[in-house]
């Protein structure tokens, strides 16, 4: 008899845990906004990327790894895109030349819960670096 | 000329376990209960029949009775409903059953035994089973299923070893108990369970020994104890106002080697001057109701508290017994309590308050004696047991329903000098059953018992070869009754004794005469005898 309290408390906990996404959405308010993908800042100077947007979304990490292999191991820096355009295989210069790390990469990564990729172990974000450099050298 | 005279018959693959077919063979089944015993207990469908018969003379609406009975029990016992629901058939229990190890019959795997019941549960009590039937693991309830239940539920000793290994604690004993209750509803019971139950109910003990016979037995024991020690013994019966009511399994006063244990008790009580009484009304601690139904258990158990109240004792002491203690420890207070007319047990010699028996007010004799020995209240001469090289068999129920593991061991270490444990995975909570408990310990079932007792005997054989063990001590009346037979077959040369028999041997009583022989009448080893005499001299 007395154990029913415990059983139903446990059951309530389980149900709460199972339905947590709904509660979370309510608690964080404005569910309508939250369910939309983050507002990504697209480059102002370019209309298209090195591959179609769908491919880039799903497989940009593999492309970046491929680029790294080509450049570091084989010294191959030339990338011919799907539309025939030629790009330099470079995260800092090509990707970050157009995209803003904070407004583009990080936002989307945070949204989809992908923890920091190890790109930034070696690479600098040119914009932050540029900013700090201007400050440090008057 | 045939190729082979006896056609080679390869074991047929068992295929689907749901195809129920059992071949009953003499020697490995218990016979049905005599109608007079059913009548005496008011149980349904008394009739003359045998499991070997083709027609079991079930009542016409037996199927409805079984299903109604199942429904009732599913609503009354959470254990039953839960254990029907949550088994995942991981197989951890499979090789834990002594009957499976001894017989290799796959339906003796605990999970398979339970599936015999579960398949019916699924078919008639679950949504998926009702819709999908066989695909959902269900099967139709037929007379063959009933026969199979009878065969396999009277082939489980409710020892609970499998439950120790189950990740969900599924206890096959619970399922067996339910199975037997259901079989009882349609009058399928065994005589070895019901006759003792009927006797216990009417007369007070399982052989139906009447009060005067009971007194004779105890007087005889008292005389024998007197002869051994040269002191006077008197066993009080139904004495009002005693401090302690002593309840023992009835085998202790008519079975051998139980009888030597009784001598041990009597000598212990005489030596410490315990103010006790035994009762002719509650003259049986062992509870054959446990092997039949919860109701029967309660009916038989009720006598103990009723008698304690009538006699006005302060608390109750219980003798060495296995299933008896399962009932006393886990069921008695719930069924027939509260025992508020009794006091919390206190050892009159050491002043130890038995806090663990605060509510039930019933203490196990091993707890009591271990406490006495620990406080040095007994003068013991372990050399008197030098003829024995002992091992200790944890009786299932004290081990797995109470956890009474160290008390008997501490007694044994004090009263004998040669003590060796059996291998680790055959003792304590992993102890192997004797294969004869729960109402299977009858001679007609001997072959099944020999199979079931094989794993235990195997461990005994090991210590016999390794350490020369020649005595198996235990604290269960069924063990004492059935293990001598099993050991005679499997490990000849090992005897069986109760722990208190060795206590009785080692106990140096105040003013006792020179003891030359142990309780069995065997002379003490010469060296020990000399030492005892010297002790005696010093004592005087």
């Amino acid at each position, binding site marked *: 008899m007395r154990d029913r309290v415990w059983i139903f408390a446990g059951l309530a906990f389980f149900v709460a845990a199972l339905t947590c996404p709904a509660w979370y959405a309510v608690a964080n308010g404005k569910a309508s906004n939250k369910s939309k993908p983050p507002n990504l800042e697209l480059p102002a100077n370019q209309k298209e990327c090195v591959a179609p947007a769908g491919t880039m979304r799903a497989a940009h990490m593999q492309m970046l790894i491929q680029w790294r292999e080509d450049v570091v191991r084989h010294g191959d820096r030339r990338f011919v895109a799907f539309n025939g355009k030629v790009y330099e295989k470079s995260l800092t210069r090509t990707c970050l030349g157009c995209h803003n790390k904070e407004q583009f990469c990080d936002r989307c990564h945070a949204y989809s819960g992908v923890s920091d990729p190890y790109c930034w172990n070696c690479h600098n974000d040119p914009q932050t670096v540029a900013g700090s450099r201007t400050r440090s050298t008057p | 000329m045939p190729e082979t005279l006896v056609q080679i018959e390869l074991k047929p693959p068992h295929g689907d376990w749901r195809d129920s077919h059992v071949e009953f063979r003499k020697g490995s089944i218990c016979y049905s209960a005599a109608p007079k015993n059913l009548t005496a207990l008011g149980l349904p469908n008394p009739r003359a029949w045998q499991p070997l018969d083709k027609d079991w003379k079930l009542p016409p609406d037996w199927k409805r009775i079984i299903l109604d009975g199942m429904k009732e029990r599913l609503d009354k016992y959470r254990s039953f409903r839960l254990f029907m629901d949550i088994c995942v058939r991981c197989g951890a229990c499979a090789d834990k059953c002594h009957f499976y190890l001894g017989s290799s019959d796959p339906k003796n795997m605990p999970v398979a035994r339970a599936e015999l019941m579960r398949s019916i549960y699924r078919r008639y009590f679950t949504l*998926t089973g009702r819709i999908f039937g066989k695909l*959902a693991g269900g099967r139709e309830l037929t007379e063959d299923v009933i026969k199979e239940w009878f065969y396999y539920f009277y082939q489980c000793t409710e020892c609970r070893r499998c439950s120790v290994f189950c990740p969900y*604690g599924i206890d096959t004993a619970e399922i067996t108990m339910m199975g037997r209750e259901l079989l009882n509803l349609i009058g399928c019971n065994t005589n070895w369970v019901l006759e003792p139950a009927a006797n216990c109910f009417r007369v007070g003990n399982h052989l139906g020994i009447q009060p005067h016979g009971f007194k004779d037995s105890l007087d005889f024991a008292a005389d024998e104890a007197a002869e051994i020690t040269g002191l006077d013994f008197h066993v009080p019966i139904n004495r*009002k106002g005693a401090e302690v009511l002593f309840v023992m399994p009835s085998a202790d006063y008519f079975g051998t080697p139980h009888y030597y244990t009784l001598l041990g008790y009597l000598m212990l009580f005489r030596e410490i001057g315990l103010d006790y009484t035994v009762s002719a009304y509650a003259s049986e601690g062992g509870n054959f109701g446990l092997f039949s139904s919860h109701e029967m258990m309660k009916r038989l158990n009720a006598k103990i508290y009723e008698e304690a109240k009538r006699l006005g004792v302060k608390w109750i002491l219980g003798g060495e017994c296995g299933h008896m203690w399962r009932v006393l420890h886990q069921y008695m207070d719930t*069924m027939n309590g509260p025992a508020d007319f009794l006091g919390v047990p206190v050892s009159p010699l050491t002043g130890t308050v038995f806090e663990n028996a605060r509510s039930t007010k019933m203490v196990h004799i091993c707890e009591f004696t271990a406490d006495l020995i620990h406080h040095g209240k007994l003068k013991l001469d372990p050399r008197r047991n030098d003829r024995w090289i002992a091992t200790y068999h944890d009786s299932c129920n004290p081990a797995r329903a109470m*956890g009474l593991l160290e008390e008997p061991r501490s007694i044994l270490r004090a009263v004998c000098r040669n003590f060796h444990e059996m291998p680790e995975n055959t003792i304590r909570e992993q102890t192997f059953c004797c294969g004869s408990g729960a109402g299977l310990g009858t001679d007609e079932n001997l072959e099944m018992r020999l199979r079931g007792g094989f794993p235990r005997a195997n461990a005994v054989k090991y210590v016999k070869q390794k350490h020369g063990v020649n005595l198996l001590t235990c604290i269960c009346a069924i063990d004492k009754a059935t293990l001598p037979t099993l050991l005679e077959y499997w490990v000849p040369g090992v005897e069986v004794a109760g722990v208190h028999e060795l206590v009785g041997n080692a106990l140096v009583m105040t003013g006792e005469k020179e003891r030359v022989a142990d309780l069995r009448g065997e002379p003490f080893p010469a060296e020990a005898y000399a030492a005892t005499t010297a002790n005696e001299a010093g004592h005087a």
Partner: protein
Amino acid sequence: MNALYSLLAVLALVLAGFACGQGAPARMVLATFVPYAAFAALLIGFCWRVARWAFVPVPFHIPVTCGQQKSLVWIRFAKIDNPSTRWGVVSRMAAEILLFRSLFRNNRARLSGGRLILGESASLWLCSLAFHWTLLLIMLRHLRLFLEPVPAFVNALERLDGYFQIGVPPLYFSDVILVSAMTFLLFRRFRDPALRYLSLFSDYFALFLLLAIAVTGILMRYFTRVDILSVKQFALGLAAFRPGASQALSALFLCHLLLVCALAAYLPFSKLMHMSGVFLSPTRNLANNSRSQRHINPWNAPVKTHAYVEWEEEFRDKMQAAGIPLEIENETEDAGNARTN
């Protein structure tokens, strides 16, 4: 046979998932209606099952004790394996649920040179433990799709799981462990004749279904790729009760979704309820204190007993002759006989 049927059942589900991925109306049904129906079945079914157990009383106090009881103060007792208090029970249950204590007993673990050596039978314990823990980890990791913003612990788990950053996207160890453990459990059922003999349709079905879910998930992550933004959008939409399936969701994803829904809906009707049942098991969740505290049976059945008075009536003469004291003396007989004490 059981194995074959259950494999077919799971394959049918997989095919249905792919088929649904093709047509727009089917996609709509699968993405909007099915998840809610399955989730409702899970919630209601689960609660119903647990409530059914909860409303059945525990009439008797029947713990299985696996160690020394608490009796005399000078005897060390097994606090966890034979608990005497509520906290002892909590530890016993924790060991049972978190570490599969009872299953571990199965092993012949021994200490050799300071190292714990496990026998071969450890595989069942080890694999089930690995399987259950990684399953939990994987489910928690999926929260990143259902919660916005993503809680820090979910990110931490993800980092931990892909700690060695093998490959891109980083290989989750939980995926590897889960699939291998499940494969082992499945093969065990096939290989061991005793288990094969016992296994039912539902035993294989649960394994095949989970395996199919794992495989579709792994395919999506490492091989065919999926647009994680649309997936998250979809998941958040479900959580906020505004379902909608974007065209970017692949057929494989819908297949994964259907399998998960099937599992959720199936769970309350299956042996998978052991996840809640284990908490309720009366042989484990009761303290071994039945002699020090009275356990109440709510329906304590009234029974016909053989009262002392009736008994004495029956054996009066014999008792008198044997000199056993009587409760009610025959006035004609010598009353002193019974009052010797």
